[in-house]
């Protein structure tokens, strides 16, 4: 059973993502705030638990996706990260990939149904 965490302050997206990713072989957890998600990750980390994959938005208030990515990079490097951004700057994209993101997805997605395929590809 793969554990997937979805973090996006845009509830609609988080919900849709949870729906397409909620399959028999994987569980999804949802957060609409970066700070809550980070606290949650830190709590889990105390009991040496971690997510297999995190999908999160780049720009969120208080704690951004990049902040969480940094935390993951140092604490639970085995967690794969898919970054999502509504901002199209290629420099940021390159930067995120260097910091350990597996892929950077441009919002809006061309087709939401492609996302499960990308996720399974990365988890494999």
């Amino acid at each position, binding site marked *: 059973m793969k554990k997937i965490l979805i973090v996006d302050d845009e509830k609609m997206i988080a919900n849709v993502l949870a729906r397409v990713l909620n399959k028999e072989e994987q569980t999804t957890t949802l957060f609409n705030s970066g700070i809550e998600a980070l606290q949650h990750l830190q709590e889990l980390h105390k009991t040496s638990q971690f997510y297999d994959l995190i999908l999160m938005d780049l720009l969120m208030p208080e704690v951004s996706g990049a902040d969480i990515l940094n935390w993951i990079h140092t604490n639970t490097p085995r967690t794969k990260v898919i970054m999502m951004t*509504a901002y199209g700057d290629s420099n940021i994209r390159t930067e995120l990939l260097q910091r350990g993101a597996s892929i950077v997805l441009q919002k*809006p997605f061309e087709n939401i149904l492609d996302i499960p395929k990308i996720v399974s590809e990365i988890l494999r």
Partner: protein
Amino acid sequence: MHTSRISLITSKETQKDFWPFLQNLSLNRYHALKELYENEKENPITEVIFIESKILKRGFEKEYKKLSTAPSLIILPEKIKKSSIISIQNIWTYFLTKEMSPKEISQLVQIAATAARKRRRISALREHQSKTSFNQKNPILQLITKLTNACTSAEDYPDLLKAVLTMKESIGFQDASIIFTNNKNDLTALYHAPHEGKIYPFDFQSKIRPSLSLLLKNSPSKIVSTSDEEAKALNEFTKHPWSSCLKLQLSHSNRTKRKETESLAYIFLFRRELVSFTEKELWLLELASGPLLLAFEKVSMLKKIDLASKEWRSTFDGISEPITVIDREFNIVKANKAFANLIEADVKKIKNKKCFSLLANRRSPCVECPAVKENQALRIKGKNKNDLLAWSYSIKLDNNDFRFQFYRNVSKETALTAALVQSEKMAALGKLVGAIAHEINNPLAGILATSQLLLNDSSNTIPQEISNDIMEISAAALRSKKIIDDLLGFTVNQENIKELVDIQDCILTSITFSRSALKNIKLNLNIDNNLPKTLISSSSIQQVLFNLITNASHAMREKGELTISAHYVEHDNTIAIRVFDNGPGIQAETLRHIFDPFYTSKLEGKGTGLGLSIVKNLITKIGGTITATSTPGKGSSFNIHIPVLNLN
């Protein structure tokens, strides 16, 4: 008050009698008129004579006439002969009576003294006139008159020689020359007046220069006769026989300060018959040297003024910025060539026209004209839609106020400023678009994803109508996404990585990407095989070409012929890429705005109007240029030049 010079001429007894009357006057006392005459023979000072009638009888008239000037007479009371009165009536006389008070006498003396002084002046003037009267037919006077007149009217170097020729008869010579040298003793001009012909300028050749220079150097005094050596040199230009020659040197050598810039003049008088010049003739020439020197100085001065004025004019005209000089009524007194060019008028037709009429096509002075408002530059919209900046400088000449008006054509600067403002606007717009795009993308992502999910999940359970509606939502969201992508493409650096790129590869990749757009289009490629590689972002070029190809395909309604050519331009080290189609072409008005953002010829909703603007942005960023040309009905062509840069 003038103190009258009074003499009292009486016997001693009579003097005693009159003393009370005359005590307040200062008197010279005599006993006979003869004594006064003897005393004042050299220097007559007496203005009023008090004379005793007794003395008048003793040969008065004879003695009185001996006095060179005529004092007024006041005759002391006593009977005199009638004949004596007649003989002295042409001089001012007054008969004193014993009843007169000292004050009355004093007044009388003043009147008498004034009359005497007046007579003395008249006689002095007459004497002066008689001494200075001269004979108008005096030959020396005639010579000087003619010479002076000629000198006064002299304006140029040959005129000086003309003045010399007025002395031809008086001095007796046939031919004359005048030679001018500069302060280095180099010959600057030579004029010769032969007896038979007109004055001609001598076109001296190099061979006579040294000999003449030598001759001119060795001149000790003002007027000299010529030596044999000098004669030889002079013969080189006189070309007629002569026996004796006089040389007169005109110089202002005593003005050492100005000597540096002064020129000298030498006058030569040639006599053909075998008679030497006499002392008198030399004296006449000496006499003439004064007026001639003055005339020479005047001509030199005129030449200098002329030169200075030419220098001023050429400097004025040489200034590339337009300048005018105007008077108080805004009439143009002077204008330089740059000004004439600016208003596209003949420089001669500008004078006395109003500056505001010529420049700005106005009927009254420009508001806030710098000629009126001090220390202030003014922006004027010129006749030819030029943007002018005007400022003013005040000068006073002969008590008249003039103004130097300086102008600068700032049209280009204005255009540049406008472009700068535009680019700043675009940068600000870019930031705004970026922010808006981000804000919209998030909810849009939700809408799009949800609608896609609904269609996928529930296609079997929801009614077809609702399914169709969701499909509409999904399509609209996708269209929105496309618009935002375009907007972001316009403002955000997609790729910054520069590498050595083969343009041919770029073109081929772009064609691969555009395969669907090129489906029914005949593609011609005309690419040089050995294009140099250039340091550039390949994705930029690919996007540019992709946009151009897609645009061409749309223009040709996906049917037609598209040609892409690329070749190296050696003279400016660029690669020229040309994309041209045989579509319907672009109207001139559209062509003018084709690279403006949000300008589109496509139907609403079909295009954002950003495609070509992005292209222009990308090309500009890599230091290239892009132009569009089109012939409506035949097709359009986009021409790109990108600089060839290498790693060094």
